[in-house]
């Protein structure tokens, strides 16, 4: 991948590395391969990805799972004849006193709202492209927002947090996993799958081409 003479710049045929500012002539790699920045190694285009319909299916699945996991029984505990049952929403809002409420707000966003919003945005953007319809009116803003929200969706971090908490509790009490627990494990796995197999550049190109 190299650049033609500087005098014949057609910016639409170039791709830039957003991480180190190198410019390349965009050349779509063969199926199963990916194009990375030669200088800093940032992945630019990937053909090892899933097709749009798989991403769409994954997004719908994750969205449905997050919404239903919110209210279903998550975990229950039993010790010395006493028991307690909690939902995911109970866990996310367990900071109740004074300013600690802010932590509850952060948690509701990080583990429930942002994952659900991101998936809804991806469905909104990808569904029309997949069915050959013109892109939705705010597709550009929606896809950009979905990308910016990515680091703040912390479902998989929460799953590992569950594992740590369970190790701590298992000595003193008996635990039972509810349906929401398994749904959330699925949410984390599917989200990692869909994020690592989605090529941003391909979708941007599709949005640009269909406009």
């Amino acid at each position, binding site marked *: 991948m190299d650049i033609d003479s500087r005098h014949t710049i057609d910016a639409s045929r170039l*791709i830039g590395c957003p991480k180190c500012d190198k410019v390349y002539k965009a050349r779509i790699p063969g199926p199963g391969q990916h194009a990375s920045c*030669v200088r*800093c190694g940032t992945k630019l285009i990937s053909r090892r990805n899933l097709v749009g319909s798989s991403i769409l299916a994954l997004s719908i699945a994750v969205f449905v799972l997050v919404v239903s996991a919110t209210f279903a029984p998550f975990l229950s505990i039993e*010790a*010395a004849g006493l028991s307690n049952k909690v939902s995911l929403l109970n866990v996310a809002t367990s*900071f109740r006193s004074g300013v600690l409420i802010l*932590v509850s707000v*952060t948690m509701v966003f990080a583990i429930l709202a942002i994952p659900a919003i991101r998936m809804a945005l991806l469905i909104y953007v990808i569904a029309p492209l997949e069915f050959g319809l013109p892109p939705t009116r705010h597709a550009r803003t929606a896809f*950009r927002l979905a990308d910016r929200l990515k680091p703040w969706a912390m479902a998989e971090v929460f799953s590992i947090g569950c594992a*740590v908490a369970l190790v701590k509790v298992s000595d003193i009490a008996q635990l039972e996993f509810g349906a929401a627990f398994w749904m959330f494990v699925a949410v984390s796995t599917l989200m990692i799958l869909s994020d690592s197999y989605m090529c941003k550049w391909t979708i941007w190109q599709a949005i640009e081409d269909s406009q």
Partner: protein
Amino acid sequence: MTTAREMGLVICTSCARVWPGHLRRCARCGHRLRSRPAASLQWVWAFWVTGLVAYIPANLYPMLVTSTFARDQSNTIVGGAVEIARHGDIWIAAIVLFASVVIPVAKFVAIAYLALSVQRGSIHSTHGRHRLHETVEFIGRWSMIDVFVVAILSALVQLSSVASVHPGPAALTFALSVIFTMLSARSFDTRLIWDPLRPRHPRAA
């Protein structure tokens, strides 16, 4: 191989589309186009200082308050780990200390090092520093584990007189510290690491 700035172009940091340098907004994704945002390092330092300030009370105040039959016990992050170690679980104590002390401190040091090296125009180990930034960005969100564990324990362990767990004020300041270090790492413009490698050229004709 040339950089966009040397060619008088600008790359959209959101969608990787290349545009003529004078454009202000990406026509493909709508993101603001800026070749090298002038204030990016100031944002890095501002978030860094805020994160550090929040990290101090996160270590001084209790993270978790456990009430059992007769007594209340509050534990700071380090205190909790020491307590676990006293019970004999050296490895779990080590993991807790690593996740909530070693990693956060290492993140502060790493971001400060990156910002200072860029300010001095260093040309050493550009690849190493680029990878360091990637690592800091990747690890950042995982520090929230501590806050999540406190949330799960305080929601779950509510067994009236037998045992109950409540979150302490450190949970808030620790969460804030994590969020601000994430923002600090995200504000860092990695292009600045690579810029000093070549003398600046005048814009291409």
